[in-house]
């Protein structure tokens, strides 16, 4: 995971940082948190894939259901487990971004981990929901790829919302990645063009909405799926 992050950051982001001009600040720093959030997204989706493999490949679901744990607790613990895994997978990456943003030794570092955790919560929930409805790995991979495309390219990850045509603006503004990356950028003392100044609390609160909704969806789907 860290190797993926490193290639994303130190190869792709570093090169685009030299290519793109006129963003009011270093474009490399503008897109740097994106590399970490992409890693978080990949790690979070892995949890859903594991749930799918448990049912269709490893035949482990029956065993898990014999454990002395109530199903809602089991389902929610799967979501939380995925979040913890994602935060661990992005732990060094988040440290690197905090270092680049000059907040490594400030309390803002905890906010950075909170953003990664909150973003991962939604994606883990979403990936578990997909697992409940995918009867084949091809279908699962297809839906995952479509969501990843939406999160990556129709968000403010690479460019400000204002560069999108007006008909795409609502899609971009409702993208959790847009709010996660905006919250990250607001942690930095650097003033990025078209990123509202101020603390990231507002962006975090907006991010919390879809994240909690998707986590709930994932939990409900897991309970439903384990009854089948």
């Amino acid at each position: 995971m860290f190797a993926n992050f490193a290639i994303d950051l130190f190869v792709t982001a570093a090169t685009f940082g030299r290519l793109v001009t006129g963003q009011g600040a270093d474009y490399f720093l503008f897109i740097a948190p994106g590399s970490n959030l992409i890693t978080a997204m990949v790690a979070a989706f892995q949890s859903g894939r594991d749930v799918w493999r448990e049912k269709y490949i490893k035949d482990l679901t029956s065993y898990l259901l014999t454990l002395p744990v109530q199903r809602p607790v089991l389902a929610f613990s799967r979501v939380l487990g995925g979040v913890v895994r994602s935060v661990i997978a992005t732990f060094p990456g988040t440290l690197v971004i905090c270092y680049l943003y000059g907040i490594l030794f400030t309390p803002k570092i905890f906010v950075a981990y909170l953003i990664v955790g909150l973003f991962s919560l939604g994606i883990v929930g979403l990936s578990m929901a997909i697992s409940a409805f995918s009867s084949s790995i091809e279908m699962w991979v297809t839906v995952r790829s479509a969501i990843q495309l939406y999160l990556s390219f129709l968000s403010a990850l690479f460019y400000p919302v204002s560069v999108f045509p007006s008909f795409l603006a609502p899609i971009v503004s409702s993208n959790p990645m847009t709010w996660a990356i905006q919250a990250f950028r607001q942690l930095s003392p650097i003033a990025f063009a078209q990123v509202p100044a101020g603390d990231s609390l507002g962006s975090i609160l907006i991010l919390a909405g879809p994240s909690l909704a998707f986590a709930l969806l994932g939990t409900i789907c897991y309970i439903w799926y384990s009854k089948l």
Partner: protein
Amino acid sequence: MSSSPTLANGLSKTTIAAESPTHLILQMALRDVSVLFRTPWIIITRALSFIIQLFVFAFLISGLIHIPGLNFFEYYAVGSVVATIASISFVIGYDIFEEAEEGVLDYLLTLPIPRRQFIIGRALGGAMRAIIYTIPMFVIVAFVWGFNQPLSILTALLSLFLLAFGVTGMSITVAVSVKSANRFDVVLALLELAVSRGSTALYPIAFMPFYVSLFAPFSPVSFAADTARSSLVGFTLDLPAIAGLVAFVVIFLGLGAAFYFRRLEGGIYG
């Protein structure tokens, strides 16, 4: 002589043992082509990914790039076809790994086809399906940017085919030399990322950080991207890049075949 497009159908004929090696290789390759096209969702997703990358990402980001003499939208368009063919060529490794995991390989090895033809057929199949899959994208790019010189298009397609052939060999090498599923996923994904991102397919070498620019010229994806660009845009042949591409194919096809053969005959299927 069987005219059926898949190996399963073709091999059901009792006359198959007398088939020529070329025919057997082709049958094996056609099986791999049909396997990919039996999963249309994967094709749709990758096509969607290409369209979004080109007409959303490249279009928007090129508005932020103001480098004199660089049409980044056009640069990215050619490069994204090259990166896509590399990406789809890696899929054969996943197929081979899954076949071994799910027991399909056991069945395939019972078929009356010599190992050598079996292995060459798999590599050729991986390359063929990648090129078939990428042609519509290539056509879109050629149409949008007005690439209409037949010789240039042919040279570009040849470079894409060579890349696909070499990457298929590389993917097979990894698939048969890594045994753990998780490690295999990680290694292949990392390799795919490294050869595509650390190449001149998506951005010019002049803008890469120093440490990337040292290796990027030697990426097989760079060889293919440079050849395709020089033939489509500059109407010239980039001979060193073509030579690099041929060397890449020879090395990894040889390695892939050797590893696959060793695994089939001396490994768990010995």
